[in-house]
């Protein structure tokens, strides 16, 4: 698939496990490193397209053709370099989706200012996790399992196809339990791409192109994704 290519800047403590996970999920990853030993490591780990380059130079970045990738991920170990890289990428390729990791407490703001589309703040998510472990240990453990465990219960997003039997149904009336899945929420394209939880109390009519997010055992989810393509439901 052409759509699943990622340009990954950095193969350090964050980049390495991330690259591995993405490859497992069927993404094609191109690693860019400015550190010789990390670059060698990437080569050894099988990233043959890995590029060893000085990312502070604009012409180097341009030569990488970032606009051809769906997402640019900045996870360099050097915090300053990471911010600088984000800034350069954003100024050169305004349209690109840039995802960055903030590794220290004040970096999130800087990365946002530099033009990152999304910033994952290490301290923010970890701090939240601590709170969740303390207050909701069971839910946290399960949620973790949902994400990590690929065979068990999982979240999945699906786009409602044209001619689906779901079209025109109101969210309040929906009960997917016969299919063994639960509807968690949806993204409504008419309402400005916002994620709406099913429990938010907004009754909404499903239309083609909406993305719904369901939770359930993996096999049931796959079956359900096939099911919603049909005009009539068997169940």
């Amino acid at each position: 698939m052409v759509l699943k290519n990622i340009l990954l800047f950095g193969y350090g403590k964050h980049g390495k496990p991330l690259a591995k996970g993405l490859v497992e999920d069927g993404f094609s990853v191109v690693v860019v490193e400015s550190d010789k030993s990390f670059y060698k490591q990437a080569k050894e780990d099988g990233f043959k397209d890995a590029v060893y380059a000085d990312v502070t130079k604009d012409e180097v970045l341009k030569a990488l053709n970032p606009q051809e990738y769906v997402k640019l991920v900045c996870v360099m170990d050097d915090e300053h370099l990471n911010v600088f890289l984000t800034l350069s990428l954003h100024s050169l390729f305004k349209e690109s989706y840039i995802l960055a990791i903030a590794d220290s407490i004040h970096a999130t703001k800087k990365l946002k200012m530099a033009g990152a589309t999304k910033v994952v703040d290490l301290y923010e998510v970890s701090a939240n996790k601590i709170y969740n472990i303390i207050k909701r240990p069971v839910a946290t453990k399960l949620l973790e399992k949902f994400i990590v465990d690929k065979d068990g219960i999982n979240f999945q997003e699906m786009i409602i196809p044209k001619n689906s039997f779901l079209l025109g149904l109101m969210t309040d009336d929906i009960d997917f339990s016969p299919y063994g899945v639960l509807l968690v929420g949806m993204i409504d394209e008419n309402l400005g791409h916002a994620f709406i939880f099913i429990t938010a109390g907004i009754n909404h009519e499903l239309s083609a192109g909406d993305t719904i997010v369901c939770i359930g055992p993996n096999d049931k989810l796959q079956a359900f994704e096939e099911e919603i393509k049909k005009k009539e439901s068997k169940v």
Partner: protein
Amino acid sequence: MKQLLLSLALRLRTSKRYKKSKDSVRDLFHNPKNPYKKYLDLTIIFLIVTSVAILIYEVKHPVPQWLDNYDIYFVFFVFSIEYILRLWVHNDLSEFITEEFHESQFLPRKFDPWKALKEGLKEKLQYMMTPAAIIDLLAIFPAYRALRVLRIFVLFRVLKLLRYTKSINQFVEVISNKKFELLTLLFFLIFIVMIAGIVLYVLEESINPNIESLFDAVYWALITMSTVGYGDIAPVTAEGKTISMFIIISGIAMISFATSVIVSAFSERLVELKENRIIEQINKNKSFLIVCGYGQMAKMFFKQNKDQLDNYIILDKSEEMVTEARKDGYNAIHEDASRYSTLNKFNVEHSKITILCLTSSDVENIYITLNAKSISRKIKVIARVNDINIISKFEYAGADHLLMPNRVVNTMVHTAITQPTMYKAVHAILTGKSIARIDEIHVHEFHSIVGKSIQELDFKSKKLLFMGIEREGEFIFSPDPSEKIKSYDILLVMGRQISLDYFNSLYSGHH
């Protein structure tokens, strides 16, 4: 007789009930963490205050008979019991005898219980000679009203307060740290007062009508020296006046010296006293959180959850970090959490403690985990793991939950790339910021939803999404609507906080 003594000692030694009751009495008297000690202290303080109040009232008014009886019999009774119990728990006589017996069996020696008994009693006698025990004993006596002067002994009951009030104890402790300086000063004071008194006595005894004895002269010296100067006795000769001037000056010097000694004693210990207070405060809670290390992680954690956290304390090895935490408005003390004595200060027995190891060093975190677990298995430990390769070490150390910042971030980034919509959902649920959150409903034994089916509970009408039940460690995803709730189930639901609160208010009651 010997046999009788031995069998009695052996029986006491092996009786579990006897040992248990003795231990619990000992704990009540000596362990400040015992939850009932507070009530004992308050009772004794009440008795002391009332008996002193009666003493004062009695001076001018007749006291009703029942109040007199209360003072004579009840207070006497309670204090005697207390004295006897304290003496009882001080040591174990039976231990001395049985030990002597075993020793005499081991070495072919004649069994002599009297010697052992004597040693045990000697120890008890030594206890009776300590100031605290003497005060206790004297505090019992005022019940005997025949001698009026014995009434003054009521004031010994006030001295008993020393034992029962913490702040006075601390004061005495701080002062006793400067024993050497204060004793030197006292000796010096006595020396000057005596010299000045004797000199004035020799010079003015025949001239000054106010000085009749050496006692008068010494009294004058002390009054002058302390700068009180009543003026009832004053020197009349030029020589006497010269001496006055000298001792006034040395008096001022001495008072300022004494003041500075006491002040410095307090300022040296002030931080420690304050920190002990914080620990005492936190120990009163049923459950609390100990955060080790005030680094970036802890800062973020507190910033986000400031309002939801009630009982917590921050420990940090670095003075700088503690100051910073205090500046940010949190309870922090300067202690090393990897030391046994630090964690042992907390109320391990009676409170539910969760320790968060958030330092940036894995070695430190493992050490704290081991330290906590060695004190009590009951302490829950959440440890931060920086290097994913050493997870197993944390598991060996016994950490209950592991937090791997790098892995959490990795998962988040991974999800953000592979499933952007889900990322929003998961992020929103994890941060709890948004309108939806996953929460747990812990069903206790007598919860009113026990026995109800999922259909009956009708989560949907309460705007909650029912996700499943965790039962005996197994998670049942979206069970059949006819499934009935059992005791100790944990229900996993998703929804807004108000929906959750509403649900809880509906079913919070008992059967």
